[in-house]
């Protein structure tokens, strides 16, 4: 519903050529090529870095797609899913369940947590229709407070847990970093192939490919169709007999579970858990990557997610070196990539809101 109808509809004959349609990814591709040239990095190292980052981050970005299609916008609250994943991985590390077995246990364990959290998040979203994105972001911050309360104060006091390796010396609270050697690269190591001296984690990439296929299929199912209907127009969907609130909650649950698994895939690759920071930037970076691929708050495809990931992480890898080469200060590149992450979100949201108003 357009409650902003007072604004005069502007007639602008936007003819969308292919170039204009893909302006954002093309711009970033140019920026990436420029960065690669300027930084003068070793191509095989660069390739290795990009493949690693691509494989460990893609699940998290794909977790954003379902809420977008259900009209919830970009779900910044996937951080909550990441927290569920981290709670699961802390648990299996505590019980010393190792290897692929441990990772599978963590994935299973994170599901009920993520479902419960996703359900609650969905209920919150239903109370904040029209401002879901800002609400999801604040919800992520709020959940982060609860998460810190859990791991700083409740573990060791209310929740009985004794583990010298994982906990602070006083016996209350988790250490800042937890070594995940038990499940380190459990998935990556499953099947790796070596092409020209670069190890490619085929196992992880295969899981990502599988998720893409499942997502593609899911959107064609009845539930997927209903989600799209809700995403297109809530009120028409309501009239057509779809329980809009329920569909939106389901979308949030799916997104949260996928984010939990995504974070587990991320962590097994990194192999250490920064207890209080690992999840914080998950939402921002995933959203930025998706937007770099040319997605908007109402339209996002699997291809946009994958292309965006490649471009965003290429830029991420080359920025410090490029900053060093151009200005002699590597930090300039580091801050530049932070600026790009935030800036692309700001610009994409502004453009989207602008366009949807002038329609």
């Amino acid at each position, binding site marked *: 519903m357009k*409650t902003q109808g007072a604004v005069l509809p502007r007639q602008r004959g936007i003819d969308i050529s292919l170039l204009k349609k893909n302006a954002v990814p093309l711009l970033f591709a140019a920026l990436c090529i420029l960065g690669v040239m300027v930084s003068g990095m070793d191509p095989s190292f660069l390739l290795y870095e990009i493949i690693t980052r691509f494989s460990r981050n893609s699940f998290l970005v794909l977790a954003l797609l379902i809420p977008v299609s259900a009209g919830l916008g970009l779900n910044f609250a996937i951080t909550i899913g990441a927290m569920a994943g981290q709670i699961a991985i802390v648990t299996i590390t505590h019980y010393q369940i190792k290897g692929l077995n441990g990772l599978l246990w963590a994935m299973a364990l994170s599901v009920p947590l993520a479902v419960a959290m996703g359900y609650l998040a969905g209920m919150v979203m239903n109370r904040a229709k029209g401002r879901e994105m800002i609400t999801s972001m604040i919800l992520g911050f709020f959940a982060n407070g609860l998460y810190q*309360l859990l791991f700083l*104060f409740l573990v060791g006091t209310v929740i009985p847990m004794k583990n010298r390796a994982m906990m602070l010396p006083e016996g209350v609270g988790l250490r800042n970093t937890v070594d995940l050697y038990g499940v380190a690269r459990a998935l990556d190591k499953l099947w790796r192939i070596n092409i020209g001296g670069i190890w490619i984690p085929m196992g992880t990439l295969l899981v990502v490919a599988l998720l893409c296929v499942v997502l593609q299929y899911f959107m064609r199912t009845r539930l997927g169709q209903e989600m799209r209907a809700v995403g297109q127009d809530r009120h028409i969907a309501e009239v057509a007999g779809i329980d809009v609130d329920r569909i939106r909650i389901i979308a949030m649950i799916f997104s949260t579970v996928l984010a939990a698994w995504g974070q587990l895939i991320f962590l097994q690759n990194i192999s250490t858990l920064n207890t209080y920071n690992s999840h914080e930037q998950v939402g921002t970076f995933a959203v930025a990557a998706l937007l770099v691929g040319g997605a908007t708050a109402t339209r996002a495809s699997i291809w946009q997610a994958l292309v965006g990931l490649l471009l965003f992480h290429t830029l991420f890898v080359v920025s410090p070196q490029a900053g060093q080469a151009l*200005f002699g200060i590597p*930090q300039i590149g580091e801050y530049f990539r932070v600026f790009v992450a*935030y800036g692309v979100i700001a610009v994409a949201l502004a453009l989207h809101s602008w366009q949807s108003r002038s329609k």
Partner: protein
Amino acid sequence: MSERFQDIRERLGIPRLIIIGFVLLLFVTAYATGMSIGPLVSASLVRIGMNGILVLAMVPTITAGVGLNFGLSVGILCGLVGSLISMELRIRGFSGFFAAILFSMPLAVVAGWAYAKLLNKVKGQEMMVGTYVGFSMVALMCIFWLAAPFSSPEMVWAYGGQGLRYTLTLDNYFGKVLNNFLLVSIGQWEFPLGLFGFFGLLCLLVHLFFRTKLGMAVKAAGANPRFAEASGIDPDRTRTMGVIMSTVLGAIGIIVYAQSYGFLQLYMAPQMMGFPAIAAILIGGANLRDARIPHVLLGTALFQTLLTIALPVTSRVIEGDISEVARLIISNGMILYALTRRDGREVA
């Protein structure tokens, strides 16, 4: 009696009552464990005066119909640049403080104008766009701090590194000038009257502004843009006024904050500074469409008192610093509460 309680409950709302109860509980605990109340109150007063103007900066945007100013860091960055220029020119004491405000003012007006132009194009999504405009400006200014042509040895890295330091001490410039001005102490109790006077003056100015003809127009257009348009007010113009005012107040707010804190915090530090201000005004009783000076006063007093005394008091009962976690939960919980209240309006 129960009717009266219900009336209070309805006027204050459950979250506010919980927070008031929490503050009282902390004071009771402090008293019971034998802490002296004087220093606790005095420290809280300083924190209230220190943060108040940043909270006040929320009033113009909400009144103008733009909503909570999540991009307050735009104003904060202007204040920081103004302070740096004042320091670079080695202006000390009160003149340094006022010079900082003076230098930051034109920057804040220009930045606020540009920011308002953008927000006028994204009506309905101002909060989201504002947040990320603020975040990206903070990141962009990080590059500025690294490359800016400041030369004062107290400001740039002492050796090897390039650019400004992460935190600059204001001791030799305008640190604490307002805090120590008219500081009245009675026994253990200290009342920073200068700090409060300045805060009060700005509150009064904002209050008076909304009584002028222009201020009334801003208010009317914020409450009902269509109606205002019909009576000859341009809502985009009044919204721009509100955003510029907020940005200017953000700049002054951070200068007052910095002089009280004694340090200027650069780089990523300003990123989240808007959020406690937002939480404070909501705690004070404001919502997404209505904010007044009493909300600023009550909210800042409650929130800052809570944060100031939580650490010393709770550390007597439990181990560890719970105040940071409490701040995260309370401030974001409060914002979440405001965002999820059904206010009868859905944004398209």
